């Protein structure tokens, strides 16, 4: 019997029990849809996350310096100046911009709102593509220690929706000190770059922030290597400087020193790797759950096929009597099982893509529709059909024609 014949026979048999077939198909649909959606959503979210992380450029090196690096003798200010001048002389480092961030409360019309405040130097804006003031100006070097503030786009629209805030005053509470700042500029919207939400932040001069928060302040650097090839070398050079400078400044405080280094140097690539490994683990867990759903779907098919074989014992007897070979019977039931699971696989693929598309729509990341999950879904569902259809099919093929004909 030819394959076309087999397919037609299977289709007729499946059509004869529409409800039953639909339910078995549904089991596979759920499993495949879950797998396809998970893969597509993870791909989309990863693509968008990578874009954000790499927005700073793959040359970027982030240096975090923890407060315990500071001794009584060296203020945050002095340490920053020393490090900045040393970083600038490094051969593989093209730029090293100090920055500091803190939580603050903004008081607007008597109401308090919490926000994040970044202490920056003029070069900070140059780290990002297309980050410029839409009104007023960014921090200049002449602003050192002045109480001026530049607003991120989202902050500005949220609290000064219909007016240009430049020239107005903003009351900020930083480290338990409430002070009035003059708004000197509003930045354009630049989204989230790296780990930094550029829009929902207010910017003050780094020196101002350091003075206000004193040695408790947590400082970091965003450095850039000359090119992508020299990232590792640049990171090593930076670490060398940190070791030297921070070691000398903490000797007087050795009793207080911990085994942990008071700084951390992170490459942009490492962020991506960390993110990918986290996502990988999650994908594995979710994929495992989806695989269980698929397994259950497969068991459903097996169950229905066993019922079907029993119900059609007479038919099997007739077929055998007129010359069907046992392997024809086996193929017939196997084709039926594979057809059920493949239909489920195809519908599941569509449903999974729909879920992924909706996820992309609401999650605001690109909808990644690749061939790979499609092949996986169809291949996997066929495999499920063969795996769970084989036993019922073999049982059908083993039936004795005479017994089968007599079966009531």
């Amino acid at each position: 019997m030819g394959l076309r014949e087999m397919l037609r026979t299977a289709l007729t048999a499946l059509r004869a029990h529409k409800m039953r077939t639909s339910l078995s198909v549904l089991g596979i649909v759920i499993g495949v849809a879950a797998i396809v959606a998970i893969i597509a959503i993870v791909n989309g979210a990863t693509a968008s996350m990578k874009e954000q992380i790499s927005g700073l450029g793959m040359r970027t090196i982030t240096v975090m310096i923890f407060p315990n690096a500071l001794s009584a003798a060296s203020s945050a200010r002095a340490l920053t100046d020393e490090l900045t001048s040393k970083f600038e002389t490094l051969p593989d480092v093209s730029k090293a911009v100090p920055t500091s961030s803190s939580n603050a409360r903004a008081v607007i019309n008597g109401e308090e709102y919490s926000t994040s405040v970044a202490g920056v130097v003029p070069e900070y804006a140059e780290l990002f593509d297309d980050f410029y003031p839409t009104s007023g100006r960014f921090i200049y070097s002449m602003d050192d220690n002045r109480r001026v503030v530049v607003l991120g786009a989202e902050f500005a629209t949220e609290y000064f929706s219909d007016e240009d805030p430049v020239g107005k005053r903003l009351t900020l509470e930083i480290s338990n000190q409430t002070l009035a700042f003059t708004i000197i500029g509003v930045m354009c919207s630049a989204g989230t770059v790296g780990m930094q939400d550029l829009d929902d932040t207010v910017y003050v001069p780094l020196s101002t922030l350091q003075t206000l928060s004193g040695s408790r302040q947590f400082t970091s650097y965003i450095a850039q290597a000359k090119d992508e090839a020299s990232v590792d070398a640049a990171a090593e050079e930076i670490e060398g400087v940190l070791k030297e400078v921070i070691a000398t400044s903490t000797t007087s405080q050795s009793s207080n020193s911990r085994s942990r280094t008071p700084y951390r140097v992170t490459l942009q690539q490492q962020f991506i790797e960390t993110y990918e490994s986290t996502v990988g683990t999650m994908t594995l867990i979710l994929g495992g759950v989806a695989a269980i759903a698929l397994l259950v779907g497969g068991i459903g098919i097996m169950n229905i096929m066993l019922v079907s074989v029993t119900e059609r014992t007479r038919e099997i007897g007739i077929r055998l009597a007129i010359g069907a070979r046992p392997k024809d019977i086996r193929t017939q039931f196997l084709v039926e099982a594979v057809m059920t699971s493949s239909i489920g696989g195809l519908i599941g693929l569509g449903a999974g893509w729909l879920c992924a598309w909706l996820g992309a729509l609401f999650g605001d990341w690109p909808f990644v529709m690749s061939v790979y999950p499609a092949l996986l879904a169809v291949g996997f569902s066929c495999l499920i059909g063969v795996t769970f259809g084989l036993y019922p099919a073999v049982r059908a093929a083993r039936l004795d024609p005479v017994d089968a004909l007599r079966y009531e």
Partner: protein
Amino acid sequence: MIELTNVTKDYPMGELVYHALCGVTFAIQEHEFVAITGASGSGKSTLLHILGALHRPTSGEALFDGENLGAMSREDLSKIRNQKIGFIFQSFFLLPRATAQANVELPLAYAGVPRKERTEIARSCLERVGLADFAEHRPTQLSGGQSQRVAIARGLANSPRLILGDEPTGNLDSHTTKEIMALFHSLHDEGRTIVLVTHEPEVAHVTRREIILRDGLIAEDKTHGTA
């Protein structure tokens, strides 16, 4: 064509063994018209299953065209059933969801006959049994006589040399029985070998040869003068 030598068939019945055939020896020549009769439990169904390559004998030799059925694989037995034997059953055993045409095409499909040819052969077989107009009917839309004609058409599809009937008129009224028997006779006249298992004397008596079984043995093997 068929040669049985001391054929026995045992069926296990729990702890016990039921001896359905206890040593049967006979031969059927090409172009014979034979009735196998006997009371129920005499072993006539078992004998039919062996003649029809549905079961292998427990012992003894069953030769079909010189080939030993007892030594064949299930696949090879299927091939014999498909190519050399046309089965006609008491309750017709048509596939209920398939049309008359599709039922007749089924043995051809298993024989690997191409689709177009299959359609033609099936149509001519239905014509042969007088049901050309009922090709698209399903078994539920056919009377008993018509169903049996479709079954006969199916039995003829691969042009087998042996037609094997298991109480083929058992579910039919006497008028239809006569029509079906006439059909068997004309098939016999065309050169086919026909073996019918029956307990109806009116069927047995119109055949040329009657083999009567009793308790798993041949009690009588007689030839009728007429028919």
